[in-house]
């Protein structure tokens, strides 16, 4: 009980959260602590429970078990409007019959704020988001980007501690998405609020996040900075999920500090093992296509192989090469200028310190 009064270091704490729709358990024993002012991205494939988690934090779903704390207060059973959260939805969810101004002030009117205070806050939000000229329009007369700005404004005016975003950019076209992404980042720098952001776009996650939580099947697979998630994925799922094109995986055996696949032997010198002594076992090595070295630089890498080019996909800025390494197809990302042709034999180099090694049975990082 004493905890309830003490000021927590965390902005949002989720403790042993369970949520089930009838018999279907969507979230199970989920723990997550989010720091003050942090931009946390929930990343995961469709149906893994990201929106569900966000709705639980917002109080829009009744949880089955566990606790949710916001700003050091237990809000597990509080009404959504009493939690100090604002929420932005993928479909904008603007009230169609109200003007932009009406949309922005609806929450404030419900909270019975004085008129001049409402005016002030709406004006400020409109200024921050640059939607002043739109205030008297109805949502139907706005573009997608403008609508999403208004939706963000609706959370902004309420002066909340925590912003919740549920794939706010996925309904926008590619270019607008990039623009608004940058603006969101700027907004976060300016406001310094806690933001929890759901997406399944990796680029959004990488660029926006202070930390990323990769989710699968209602559980958090890995929580870490974008750098950690990208370079040191904690298990095979995260390794496979993050990165495009995705990681190359070779199944083999780990023995005495060396990884063997078929007749190839890779000494793992310089690899940062999670546990100091790692016993021999079947293992999987993961190498990112962009970490495979070609051309001049090959000489500097510890491991070198000759591969036969099978297929070349030029993509402008870079070129994706499918090559045969033994009986495996290996993806290699090369510079866009590189001139390679199918049938050619090229030399590639691999740096074990940039690879990831996983236990084949548990799928965890070694």
């Amino acid at each position: 009980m004493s905890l309830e009064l003490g000021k927590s270091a965390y902005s949002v704490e989720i403790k042993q959260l369970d949520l089930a729709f009838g018999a279907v358990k969507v979230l199970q024993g989920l723990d997550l602590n989010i720091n003050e002012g942090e931009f946390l991205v929930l990343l995961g494939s469709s149906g893994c429970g990201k929106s569900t988690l966000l709705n639980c934090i917002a109080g829009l779903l009744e949880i089955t078990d566990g606790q949710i704390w916001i700003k050091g207060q237990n809000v597990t059973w509080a009404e959504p409007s009493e939690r100090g959260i604002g929420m932005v939805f993928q479909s904008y969810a603007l009230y169609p019959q109200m003007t932009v101004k009406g949309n922005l002030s609806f929450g404030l009117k419900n909270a019975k704020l004085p008129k001049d205070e409402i005016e002030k806050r709406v004006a400020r939000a409109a200024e921050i988001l640059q939607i002043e000229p739109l205030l008297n329009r109805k949502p139907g007369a706005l573009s997608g980007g403008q609508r999403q700005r208004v939706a963000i404004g609706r959370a902004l005016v309420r002066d909340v501690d925590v912003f919740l975003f549920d794939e706010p950019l996925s309904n926008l076209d590619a270019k607008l998405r990039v623009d608004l992404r940058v603006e969101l980042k700027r907004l976060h720098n300016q406001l310094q609020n806690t933001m929890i952001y759901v997406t399944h776009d990796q680029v959004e996650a990488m660029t926006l996040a202070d930390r990323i939580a990769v989710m699968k099947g209602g559980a958090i697979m890995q929580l870490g900075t974008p750098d950690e998630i990208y370079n040191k994925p904690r298990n095979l799922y995260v390794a496979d999920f993050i990165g495009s094109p995705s990681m190359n995986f070779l199944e083999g055996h780990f023995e005495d500090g060396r990884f063997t696949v078929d007749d190839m032997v890779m000494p793992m010198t310089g690899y940062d093992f999670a546990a100091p002594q790692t016993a021999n076992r079947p293992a999987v090595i993961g190498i990112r296509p962009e970490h495979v070295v070609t051309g001049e630089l090959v000489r500097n890498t510890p491991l070198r192989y000759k591969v036969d080019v099978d297929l070349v996909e030029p993509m402008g800025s870079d070129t994706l090469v499918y090559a045969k390494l033994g009986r495996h197809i290996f993806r290699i990302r090369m510079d866009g200028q590189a001139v390679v042709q199918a049938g050619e034999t090229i030399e590639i180099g691999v740096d074990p310190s940039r690879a990831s090694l996983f236990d084949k049975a548990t799928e965890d990082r070694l």
Partner: protein
Amino acid sequence: MSVVEDRSLQGAAGAKRPIRLFRNPMAKIASIPMILTAMVVFVGGTLWTVVHSFSGSKLLPRLNWVGFDQYERLWETPRWLISISNLALYGICSLILTLTIGFVLAALLDRKIRGEGVFRTIFLYPFALSFVVTGIAWQWILNPDFGLQNLVREWGWESFVFNPLNDPDTVMFGLLIAGIWQGSGLIMCIMLAGLRGIDEDIWKAARVDGIGTVKTYIRIVIPMMRPVFITSLVLIASGIIKLYDLVVAQTNGGPGISSEVPAKYVIEYMFRAQNLGQGFAASTMMLVSVVIILIPWAYLEFGKGMRIMHFLGMIALVLLTLAGFVAVVVAWSFSLSLLLPLVGFLICAGALTAYLRFVKGHIQHG
């Protein structure tokens, strides 16, 4: 009126799990009319009638147990037997004719017709009229001295006879003409919507394959419209059972009792003949026949993916349980021995629960 609950006790309020029954109280209060209607009027009222059908009520409802006497008497009453066979005749003809006419009209209108709106308006307007108006209008047209028969005779065919409303053998067809006139527009409308819901590419594909129009309708379109036909069927069937106003207005059951229908039988016995028990027994029979009609529909609509044996077993158990429940209420109402029906009901309910669980598991695995 707003239901934002007052939670001035910050933090502490969110920590306590509210009692389920009192969460969102407004939603429950607002649903009271619905709950009362469903439970008191629909369930309670039906049960009341069924219970009293085992009584010898005359002018006023009384609970004097007469067992199945009312039912025995009912099935010995010529008027009831005529009512039933009339309804069966009317029902079958009306079902076939309405479906056929509705579909043919819809198909004709679907052929890029000029003035489709005009035709649709003409076919549908009778549906806006009441059965009383319909009945009286057709009574007038079928009047032997002034109507159709007279017209044809004036044209020179002196011996022409078309006098259904005064002929016990054909009076039901007189009603049928009016009933179809009133109701077929609705079915046409539903069928038309169904036809419009069919992918236009089907027609292109059929034309490419060289399949004729009529053949396309029979082989491809009609099978695709199965749900529409089922909806129409249920709609027509539930209308048939209610057949009352039309008869009262057009023939008033005559000549003699040759166009009586069950709904009319019930009303007459309840409110004119002051033989409530008979009325209750007859209306219970109507209820039973509706249940029998609805079972195949329920299978088609909800039993998808369920084996027919499972469905039949489930229905049988549901019916047994319902019968058991009614038996318990009846026994209790008439202060008969409660033990036997109660045990029967409990066994049935137990079996039903077990069976439902079994079937559910089966569906999930399959």
